[in-house]
């Protein structure tokens, strides 16, 4: 626990921007594809030329509704767009089309994975609204270069209540939100590519008090880790100021990832006045109940529900469920491997260790890094049926990841099938005992430890393929004499 945290409590709210998975921009027919040459995906509309007008993208609206449904928000049947005015070189119209008083989704919550033995915590949302992205400035020694390819790309801004109490919890919230956005195909939510971005509002207050402290806003956070580090830094900084008898200034800070510290961005005299007013170029956005119902019918099972189901039906621990559910494709993989398996926990462990390792080590997406889930299921069924040992299964899995061949074929090819034939094993055990009279005498004389030695010798003689249970039973009998 950082210094002062026994005395102070952090109050944290997050504003997350996520790029919606659309082909075209929010208000014009330009492509949203990543990686075009500078100003290659622009037109008069997203360049803010004189006289142009916005026309709303239907898909963006549906994705925002999806986000609202996924976050248990109320979908506004009637919302309007507003202009948010400020000057910046990457903002072509001098205003951003956003939503102010009437967002498309109100309220809602994101459920954090429960800690073992606790109830899951809910972080409430204030709102989710639609808005357009700005372009990009590239800073050079003698000025800046401006690229409008991102200008007009559709975003949802997801604003949380200040319900978060620690850096860890902020990280958990972001991971949960990330999973939701990806589960429901709302956004690919890649922080490193900028398709998910996060601003943080942090304040501290003495424990046991209700009144909110003065908050500072931290921008430019492009990884979960930076969000956590920046919050830790900022909370300590504020506590230090208060402990020294100082006052917190309401400011915007930039996170400096190299120095791992925040620094103030704009001075106070530049307090913003965005002059929001209703966008006269767009009619009110009406979302009829049947659209909400239609979107609802296409929603997949969301991470929180899935987590609960894994704990309930598969008796996984909350931790295990959380690891599996974090990425939809991993959880889908797990479930696709399950048919015919009795031991779900073992399957979960397998996915959490072997499958995730394969992804990590190959640095490839799941579909390329690991065998088809049905083949993994088949391999695990062979373990359950004691046709192969767990170690043999690991060997086979590693080979399958590389070759792409099926479980049966790989086990056969590598000769990994386990021998359970008692007669064959008995014969080997007899030979081993015969070859080691000295050890036999010592064992029978009371050195029980030597049992392991005989098991090892027998297993070695059988090339590791013998069923260990059968070896154990037979040796016990035979050594007893």
């Amino acid at each position, binding site marked *: 626990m950082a210094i002062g945290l026994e005395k102070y409590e952090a109050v944290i709210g997050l504003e997350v921007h996520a790029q919606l998975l*659309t*082909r*075209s921009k929010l208000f*014009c*027919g*330009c*492509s949203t594809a990543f990686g*075009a*040459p*500078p*100003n*290659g*995906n*622009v*037109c*008069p509309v997203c*360049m803010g030329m004189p006289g142009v007008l916005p*026309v*709303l*993208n*239907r*898909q*963006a*609206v549906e994705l925002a509704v999806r986000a609202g449904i996924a976050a248990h928000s109320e979908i506004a049947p009637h919302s*309007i767009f507003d202009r948010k*005015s400020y*000057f*910046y*070189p990457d903002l072509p119209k001098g205003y951003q089309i956003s939503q102010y008083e009437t967002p498309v989704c109100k309220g809602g919550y994101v459920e954090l994975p429960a800690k073992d033995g606790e109830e899951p915590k809910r972080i409430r949302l204030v709102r989710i609204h639609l808005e357009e992205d700005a372009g990009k*400035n*590239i*800073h050079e020694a*003698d*000025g*800046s*270069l*401006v*690229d*409008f390819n991102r200008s007009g790309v559709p975003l949802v801004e997801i604003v949380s209540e200040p319900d978060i109490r620690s850096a860890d919890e902020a990280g958990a919230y972001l991971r949960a939100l990330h999973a939701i956005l990806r589960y429901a195909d709302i956004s690919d939510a890649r922080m490193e590519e900028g398709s998910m971005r996060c601003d943080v509002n942090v304040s501290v207050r003495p424990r046991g008090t209700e009144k909110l402290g003065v908050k500072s806003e931290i921008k430019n956070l492009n990884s979960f880790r930076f969000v956590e580090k920046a919050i830790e830094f900022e909370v300590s900084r504020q506590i230090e100021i208060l402990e020294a008898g100082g006052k917190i200034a309401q400011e915007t800070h930039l996170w400096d990832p190299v120095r791992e510290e925040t620094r103030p*961005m*704009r001075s106070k005299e530049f307090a913003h*006045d965005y*002059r929001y007013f*209703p966008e*006269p170029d*767009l*009619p*009110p*956005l009406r979302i009829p109940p049947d659209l909400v119902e239609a979107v609802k019918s296409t929603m997949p099972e969301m991470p929180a529900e899935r987590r609960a189901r894994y704990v309930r039906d598969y008796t996984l621990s909350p931790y295990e469920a959380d690891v599996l559910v974090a990425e939809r494709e991993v959880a889908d993989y797990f479930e696709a491997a399950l048919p015919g398996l009795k031991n779900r926990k073992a399957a979960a462990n397998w996915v959490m260790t072997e499958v995730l390792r394969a992804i990590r080590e190959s640095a490839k997406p799941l579909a390329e890094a690991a065998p088809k889930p049905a083949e993994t299921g088949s391999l695990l069924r062979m373990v359950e049926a004691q046709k192969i040992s767990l170690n043999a299964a690991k060997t086979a899995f590693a080979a399958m990841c590389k070759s792409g061949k099926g479980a049966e074929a790989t086990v056969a090819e590598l000769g990994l099938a386990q021998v359970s034939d008692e007669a064959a094993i008995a014969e080997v055990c007899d030979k081993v005992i015969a070859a080691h009279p000295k050890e036999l005498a010592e064992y029978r004389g009371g050195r029980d430890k030597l049992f392991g030695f005989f098991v090892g010798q027998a297993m070695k003689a059988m090339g590791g393929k013998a069923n260990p249970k059968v070896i154990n039973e037979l040796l016990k009998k035979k050594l007893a004499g």
Partner: protein
Amino acid sequence: MAEKKISLEQVRHVARLARLEMSADDEARLQADMSSILAYVEKLNELDTTDVPPTAQVGEAGTPIRDDAVTNHPAPEEMLANAPARQGGFFKVPRIIE
């Protein structure tokens, strides 16, 4: 001199929001002009509008929404043709003040 509806300080603040450089003369003239217009506009306060909803738009919309299709073809040269300054495919601006 008639009562001013807006102070010089306010004029400067608004000019900063609107990004308009102004000389002292400009500020004084705008203070006078804006004051007389704002005084005229006071007339609206004769009306009780407590229960009146605002009108932001009139008319009727036709096709307020479009399908998610890429319909524009890249024409960066055309889009950059009016640029006051450019570098390659980028627009160029002087040093940015945060």
